[in-house]
C-alpha cells in the first residue's frame, strides 16, 4: 500500500499572504490533483498534473499556482490569501488517467485572518 502526506495539516495566514501547501505520494502514481473542499460545495478541482513537470488548470485555478517538480510531489500555492477564507485543500493521486480510483490525503485546513 501507499500513502499521501499533506503538509501542513493546519495553515493560518494573513490577508494577501502567499501560502504554499505540499503533497507527497509513495504510490508511484502518474497523476496528481489538488481539490478545494468548502462546506456544502463538494470538491472542486484546482490543478492537476498527469506527469512530472506537467500542469493543467482545473475549474478553480484562478488565484492559485502549482508545481510538479518530481513525480512523487505536487505543491499548491495560494498567491494572495483572501480575508476570512476558510477551506480544506485535498491532494489526490491515481495510477492512470481514467476510471482509476483516487487516493486522497487527509487535507490541509486553511484559515485566513
Amino acid at each position, binding site marked *: 500500500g501507499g500513502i499521501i502526506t499533506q503538509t501542513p495539516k493546519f495553515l493560518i495566514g494573513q490577508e494577501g499572504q502567499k501560502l504554499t501547501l505540499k503533497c507527497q505520494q509513495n504510490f508511484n502514481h502518474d497523476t496528481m490533483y489538488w481539490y478545494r473542499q468548502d462546506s456544502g460545495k463538494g470538491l472542486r*478541482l484546482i490543478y492537476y498534473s498527469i506527469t512530472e513537470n506537467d500542469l493543467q488548470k482545473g475549474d478553480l485555478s484562478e488565484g492559485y499556482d502549482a508545481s510538479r517538480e518530481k513525480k512523487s510531489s505536487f505543491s499548491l500555492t495560494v498567491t494572495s490569501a483572501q480575508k476570512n477564507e476558510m477551506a480544506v485543500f485535498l491532494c489526490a493521486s491515481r495510477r492512470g488517467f*481514467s476510471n482509476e480510483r*483516487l487516493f486522497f490525503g487527509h487535507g490541509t485546513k486553511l484559515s485566513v485572518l
Partner: protein
Amino acid sequence: QQQVRQSPQSLTVWEGETAILNCSYENSAFDYFPWYQQFPGEGPALLISILSVSDKKEDGRFTIFFNKREKKLSLHIADSQPGDSATYFCAASAHIASSSFSKLVFGQGTSLSVVP
C-alpha cells in the same frame, strides 16, 4: 453550473434502517460513477462505483441503482450502522476516446448520521 447534484444535503436514519442517498447528473457523456466516503478529518475514500452499462452494483451492504434514461443514481446503505456516519460524495466522469484522460466531477455531498 453544478453538473452533479446530490440530495438530501443531510440525512439521519436509525441503526438498522436503509439509508438512501440520491444523485443526478446533466452530462449524458458521463459513464463512470464512483461514490466516495469521507470521515471527519480524513480524505474521501472510494466506496463503490458503477459504469453506465450496468443498472445495479452491489458490495455487501452498499448498492448503487443507476437509471441512465433519467440520469439518476442512488446509493442504498442497508442495515445502517453508526460507523457509516460520514459524508458521501457522488462523482462522475466521461471517458473521452480521443484522450485517455478524464476529469472526475464531484457532487456537493450528503452528510449521513446513523443514530443508535
